[in-house]
């Protein structure tokens, strides 16, 4: 269960306060792998940041009884001056991992990311592909009930994409995911419900194909079961 109740979020800007969500309601049932789709600027990334606990709500509540990951694939999460290994250790420490757990996590990430000796070089020297390998491996090293993933498997070369998709698929046997992507093939493959986000509203489609169709033809697509107005 993951409920957003009367959520209002705005940012101050030069043009006055800009509301991303105003009295926004959304309820995602248990056991659903959710595809979050919508045009640019609809608030997908903001929603991810809110779910990840990185942003303060103006008002409203987000209620869940599940263990939610940090937003994976968004900017941030790595400290450039530290090595890949030290970044993994840092994340282990803030999750209060024991020494053995930390060794296991470090070994897992090192093996998964396959970046060789660069694992012991500062992250700021990494290419963007290496960064995303490290970040995805780091997130998958920890067991969460719900992973927040922002189009992360779309980067990297073909071999890495295959590998990360397999790992994610395996993980989805016991966890769930909220997945943002503009790649509808990915959404159709991973998700069993779709949330179509438009500025000011969200619509849940329990039929993934229907949701994707509504997204691709926003003007004529059918809008059923409006969850929030």
């Amino acid at each position, binding site marked *: 269960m993951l409920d957003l109740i009367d959520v209002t979020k705005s940012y101050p800007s030069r043009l006055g306060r800009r509301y991303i969500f105003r009295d926004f309601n959304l309820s995602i049932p248990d056991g659903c792998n959710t595809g979050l789709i919508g045009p640019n600027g609809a608030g997908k990334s903001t929603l991810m940041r809110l779910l990840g606990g990185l942003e303060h709500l103006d008002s409203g509540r987000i209620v869940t009884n599940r263990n939610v990951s940090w937003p994976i694939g968004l900017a941030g999460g790595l400290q450039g001056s530290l090595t890949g290994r030290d970044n993994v250790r840092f994340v282990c420490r803030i*999750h209060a991992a024991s020494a053995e757990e930390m060794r296991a996590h470090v070994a897992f990430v090192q093996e998964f990311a396959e970046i060789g000796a660069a694992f012991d070089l500062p992250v700021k020297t990494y290419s963007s592909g290496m960064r995303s390998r490290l970040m995805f491996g780091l997130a998958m090293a920890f067991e969460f009930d719900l992973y927040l993933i922002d189009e992360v498997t779309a980067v990297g070369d073909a071999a890495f994409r295959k590998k990360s998709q397999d790992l994610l698929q395996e993980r989805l046997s016991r966890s769930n995911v909220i997945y943002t992507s503009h790649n509808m093939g990915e959404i159709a493959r991973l998700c069993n419900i779709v949330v179509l986000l438009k500025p000011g509203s969200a619509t849940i489609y329990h039929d993934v194909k229907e949701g994707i169709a509504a997204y691709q033809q926003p003007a004529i697509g059918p809008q059923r079961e409006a969850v929030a107005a």
Partner: protein
Amino acid sequence: MCSVVFALSLRELKTRLDGRWGGAVWVVGEPLLNTLAMLALYSAMRAQTIGGVDTLLFLVSGQMPFLLFRSLATRLMDAIDSNLGLFAYRQVQPVDAVIARAVVEVLVFSAVMGACLAGLGWAGHPVLPKKPLELFAAIALLIVLGSALGLFLAVGTAPPLNRLRGLVTMLFLPVYVTSGALMPLGSLPISLRGYFLYNPIAHLLELLRSALIGPAYQASPHVGWSLPILWALCLVLAALGLYRARRHRLQMG
């Protein structure tokens, strides 16, 4: 929160030491060099004693604690910005980065000050504190003042105001000059001493010296604990209040 501060402290220490011997040498060498430069100045003036104590002890007991205060205030100012990437984890809050950096600064100071005093003691200077509790109280107050000012500046000069930071760093020069790190308050003309006595750091340095050296050091009779404690209270309140008011804006960068 403890594990977060611990993790951040280790990360600060790692980047501070740079993973090389050169980094560690610089961390210890910077305050030492600073003190040695002042010592060279006083040697050139052929001053063997200042305020009734030998020059070395006088400088170490003034310069080092002042550097602790200043590096706390100026380095904590950048603590939030240099950890922006790590706020992607919800358990890492901006204040954790400030606390972690303060921990590292205090650790570095303790190591350098300890080494200095040990070296001076080995060379035959009287370094055993005469009033250890007061010495610790003075250092603790310096840490509180520096950390509170650092947190206040970190939040107050958060982007887009971060261009003020250069200016703020320059403002530490008058604080330094009037802190009595380089001359005892008792040796000043009365007309000047009034300005020094507005500076809470000057009070603390005098108190610290008389706690370390004992009655041999002629502390100014005008100094007392009340002004630094009042400053510390006000600064802590201001810093925490400002942080509380703006904490949600700090993670956005």
